[in-house]
């Protein structure tokens, strides 16, 4: 169960980018949403990610930040026929020539895609 350590790492990077963004600005901006992409072979269970995100942001400035998750299919390129195949399961074969000499090109990472920043709410 290493989703918590990955979300900790995600949050550290989000905070760094937000601080960089706010540096020198007159009005500070909060992180309204964070968009991530989870590959089928990322070693991350997408169902557990919102739970870890919620627990780790509880009572922090990121408490009300929305998390948007996109799942990404696994894709390989064949080193024999050079064609790409999107895999449905985990049988690593080229869909064109059936060769097992394939290299992963997508779907083995957990990526931070975008962050949306908006002006802080001010209570009247």
């Amino acid at each position, binding site marked *: 169960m*290493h989703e918590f350590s990955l979300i900790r*790492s995600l949050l550290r*990077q989000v905070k760094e*980018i937000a601080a960089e963004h706010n540096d020198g600005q007159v009005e500070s*901006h909060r992180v309204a949403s964070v968009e991530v992409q989870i590959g089928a072979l990322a070693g991350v269970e997408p169902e557990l990610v919102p739970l870890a995100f919620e627990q780790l942001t509880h009572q922090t400035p990121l408490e009300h930040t929305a998390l948007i998750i996109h799942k990404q299919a696994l894709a390989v390129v064949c080193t024999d026929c050079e064609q790409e195949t999107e895999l449905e399961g985990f*049988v*690593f074969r080229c869909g064109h020539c059936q060769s097992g000499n394939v290299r992963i090109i997508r779907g083995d*990472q957990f990526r931070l895609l*975008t*962050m949306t920043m908006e002006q802080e709410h001010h209570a009247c």
Partner: protein
Amino acid sequence: MPAETITVNRDIDADRRDAAKKFREQRSRAGTLVVNLVSSPGAGKTSLLEATLAHWKQRWNVAVLVGDLATDRDAQRLRPFAPTEQLTTGGACHLPLPLVEQGFQRLPSCPLDFLFIENVGNLVCPASHDLGEHLRVVLVSTTEGDDKPGKYPKMFRTSDALVVTKLDLLPYVPFDVDCVVQDARKVQANLEIMTVSVTQQTGIAAWCAFLEKRREHMLQEMQQS
């Protein structure tokens, strides 16, 4: 309310992966082949290391970093053969690179030909952690069942070699070596596959020769670059 979207598009693990690459390059330059042994608990990682070190009879300079949730039992078994540091994860299900680096610093500072990292017994989380190894070796024992590769695809996909252990128990367990080989090759067609029995001392020489060949290969690559 004005909103602005920042495009980041970055692998969350990028820093960790860079750190692992750096550790691997440093060990390459020192002539040390780093081998990360992974398996479920009880597959025989420590026994395979004992047999390996006994077979080599100090022909090579070897050190071991051994990870467990608690106790230094594995380190106690390996210390008679080679300098060994126990890495205690305190409950974590895998070895992270910083713990490996700390353990490495505690080892006697002599030139090493091989550095073995015995990971925490687990076929899930260690798959996602590059420890700066040159070679990831996954062990499957005959008592675990021959259906493991398809069930834990990331571990087998990210491994360079598969060692089937406890081959002496084949007459007593429903385990088909061909099945595990076929299943593993579906996930990683180019996996190097070996079989061993530590109790009967079979396959140990071939395994040791494989490690020596891979170190030779690493040294050649170093010279070329």
